[in-house]
């Protein structure tokens, strides 16, 4: 079951091309991380998926056209776009009442259960809550909706480490199951590395890398090379090299683990390292490039 299917998705703002023929398919039960630099087209892609912006090309979300059927689609799709979009004048109890009123799949008891684990009081107004608490409230509302696709656009921006960790923990423990699908964009990639099942890099409106996390872990290796083996390691054609504290760290695609282990310490790279390698490096174009 394809949750999202896009073919040749294009979107331009004047002369700026935000999406340049994106093809993507997301299956049910996946947690996809859409990673890219600022202005890469992440939000535009999500907005198109959510029916917030018109687009060219083909796009189906749960079999619907998001632009023409947004209100219908929103029964099965939830999203948190950025932190702090909950109206500041609203009381927590009003937010519960309203969502329960308009959403056929909202389970109020579940939302109250989530809120009971926080310090959020029903009588509080959103403006009286801290940024972290607003996010908790929004997450409680969203997790109580029995949706098939959840889209998170920078859901933890500006939150401290504890709230961020809590956010993804509750998402995994209390919400996610194999019949739901989550698409998340974030700049805090280290937070989501162990949450994702799939990874996608987007740059200048194009998808430059797409793989599952299993593939990512088997394919990419990071070698902290011992100084005497630097030349030997470079001969194996790393896709990226950088220096940390005087030591060379090399990133390999499709390399032999045993062979590398002889040259230094081998480990799975962080998403951030691969991101820098693929996007900050011309060599990246040859690696795992889609399109």
């Amino acid at each position: 079951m394809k949750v999202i299917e896009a073919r040749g998705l294009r979107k331009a703002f004047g002369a700026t091309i935000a999406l340049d023929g994106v093809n993507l398919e997301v299956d049910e039960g996946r947690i996809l991380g859409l990673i890219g630099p600022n202005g890469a087209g992440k939000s535009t892609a999500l907005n198109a998926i959510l029916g917030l912006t018109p687009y060219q090309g083909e796009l189906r979300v749960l079999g619907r056209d998001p632009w023409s059927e947004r209100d219908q689609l929103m029964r099965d799709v939830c999203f948190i776009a950025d932190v702090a979009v909950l109206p500041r004048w609203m009381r927590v109890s009003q937010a519960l009442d309203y969502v329960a009123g308009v959403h056929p799949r909202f389970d109020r008891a579940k939302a109250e259960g989530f809120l009971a684990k926080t310090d959020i009081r029903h009588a509080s107004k959103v403006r009286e809550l801290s940024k972290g608490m607003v996010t908790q409230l929004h997450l409680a509302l969203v997790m109580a909706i029995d949706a098939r696709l959840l889209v998170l656009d920078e859901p933890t921006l500006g939150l401290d480490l504890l709230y961020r960790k809590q956010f993804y923990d509750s998402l995994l423990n209390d919400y996610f199951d194999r019949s739901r699908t989550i698409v998340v964009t974030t700049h805090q990639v280290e937070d989501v590395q162990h949450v994702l099942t799939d990874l996608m890099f987007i740059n200048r409106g194009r998808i430059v890398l797409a793989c599952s996390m299993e593939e990512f872990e088997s394919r990419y290796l990071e070698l902290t090379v011992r100084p005497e083996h630097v030349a030997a390691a470079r001969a194996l054609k790393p896709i990226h090299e950088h220096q940390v504290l005087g030591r060379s760290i090399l990133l390999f695609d499709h390399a032999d683990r045993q062979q590398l282990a002889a040259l230094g310490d081998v480990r799975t790279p962080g998403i951030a390292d691969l991101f820098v390698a693929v996007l900050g490096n011309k060599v990246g174009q040859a690696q795992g490039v889609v399109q």
Partner: protein
Amino acid sequence: MNTQSNAVPDSPLGAQGIAPAAMSVTRPMYWSVRRELWENRSIYIAPLAVAGFALVGFLIATIGRSLSTPDLAERRTILEEPYSFATALIMGAATIVALFYCLEALHGERRDRSILFWKSLPVSDLTTVLSKASIPFVILPGLAFVVTVATNLIMLLLSTAVLKGSGLSAAALWAQLWLFQMQLLYHLVTVHVLWYAPIYAWLLLVSGWARRAAFLWAGLPPLAIFIIEKLAFNTSHFAALLRYRFTGPEEFDFTEPGSSFALHPMMHLNLGKFLSTPGLWTGLLVAAIFLAAAVRLRRYQGPI
């Protein structure tokens, strides 16, 4: 390309057993209107506050003044005076609230980015815009009517007590009042809802369109049209059109001096004449076009 890996088999369709959720059309509408009332409490606070103010004024000034005059006839006249004034105050408050509400309705949600939250829920843009339009078209006139009737009733009860105490009958006052209430309702529906509809719809459209200073954008285009027309053709049909919209058709401008309850020249206008005024129907058509444009616009709008 495909993000699927072999690790996860596709779940069968409808694994969660979600039946297509049935929800009536009216429910999102009902909650959207409630939402507006939560956010804009001035919608009911302002008319109530003005009513309270009018009652206090009535109690202190009118009752006090009437009791201080020994002349019974004059006492009756004094007591008959303030009804239309109190009514006009409440209606005026409701109108001002309606104007400001409309200018803010589709602007505020974009400014505070909450539109992203509203749009994440299964409520159509049509429902949202109609729920916002219902405030000036239904809620405020209805509220103004109820508050006015209640205020007038309290005033009437107080007057009756004073008149009875002076040995005078209040029957005439009561009879006049019921007529007055019916006229008021008629006035509200014909003038405030139907005749002024394009004005409210225009303000709603501007609030959905302007990125900032919605107040200016509401007034500048009409001013620009007026100036351009004046410079290009040395005519002022557009200004006449606007004046016509604000004051109502001139042929209906007949006041009945005798009534102490006269509120507005258009109050007594003939229903047949009113319904056969082309200006009414073109106005409603324009209002519908403005609202349709506001609905369409909201589809495209994100936070500003």
